[in-house]
């Protein structure tokens, strides 16, 4: 069971209480009626889908109901940190980790054998 630290509830809760909300820090253009189709496509549809660290919005939908942001490693599924909506992207090198090691299938199977 993946545990996610909610910055509003101030504790780790089961992933079952959360929903992913897509990439974070995507600013809506202030002149949205004037931009070209290509610019709109880039804002609305195009995402990086990185292998590694990604900044995402998450919602504690079956908890406090709040959206917040998280830095997650897409390879290990480890949450590096979470922070309140509206706060700037954190410096990951300086941040303490808020979630324990993820229990991956491989790791558990390795221990079982």
């Amino acid at each position, binding site marked *: *069971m993946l545990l996610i630290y909610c910055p*509003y*509830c*101030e*504790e780790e*809760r*089961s992933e*079952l*209480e959360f929903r992913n909300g897509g990439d974070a820090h995507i600013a809506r253009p202030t002149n949205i009626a004037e931009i070209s189709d290509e610019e709109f496509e880039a804002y609305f549809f195009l995402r990086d889908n990185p292998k590694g660290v990604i900044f995402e919005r998450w919602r504690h939908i*079956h*908890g*406090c*109901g*709040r959206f917040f942001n998280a830095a997650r490693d897409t390879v290990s599924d480890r949450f590096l940190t979470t922070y309140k909506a509206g706060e700037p992207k954190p410096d990951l090198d300086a941040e303490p980790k808020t979630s324990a090691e993820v229990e991956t299938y491989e790791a558990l199977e390795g221990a079982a054998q």
Partner: protein
Amino acid sequence: MADQAIRKAPLAGLRGGSHAAILTPAAPASRISLRAGKDAVPALSAALGVTLPLRPKTSASSGKRHALWLGPDEWLVIDEDDADLMAAAGSSGALHSAVDVSHRNTAIIVSGPGAEVAINSGCPQDLSLGLFPVGACSRTIFGKAEIVLLRTAEDTFRLECWRSFAPFVFGLLSEGAEDAAH
């Protein structure tokens, strides 16, 4: 032909559980879903006669009225005496949003030494006394249904769920209560 409409509670007459965890449908109560900013909290607390808690997972009670923290600006207020909470909140004079959810929710009282185990059969939260003491409350998930938990005593929980989910919740809780007896 029946000439009278009879209001029927969602879990009327049901009893269940085991000797480890007894399940009892709670009596009807009035409830509001309350949203308000920090500025309005003192006036709303005074109008409702119960101090709205500001810390996560905490509740406050005054007699049979309970205010449960659900989110940073959201509370579930329950009055077991069926008092008019909408009017009470309205008399505060402070900016807020209150929705009467008295009949949207129903509640099940889970009590006994196996109450934690019965609820944990479908709920991932840590309900040990250290992390979820008496008076603690939380919106969370139970199987497929969203619930609100309030611990009213060391071995007793009030479990609120939406009325359309009540048969599912009661059924899954009954299974959990049986498991808790083993």
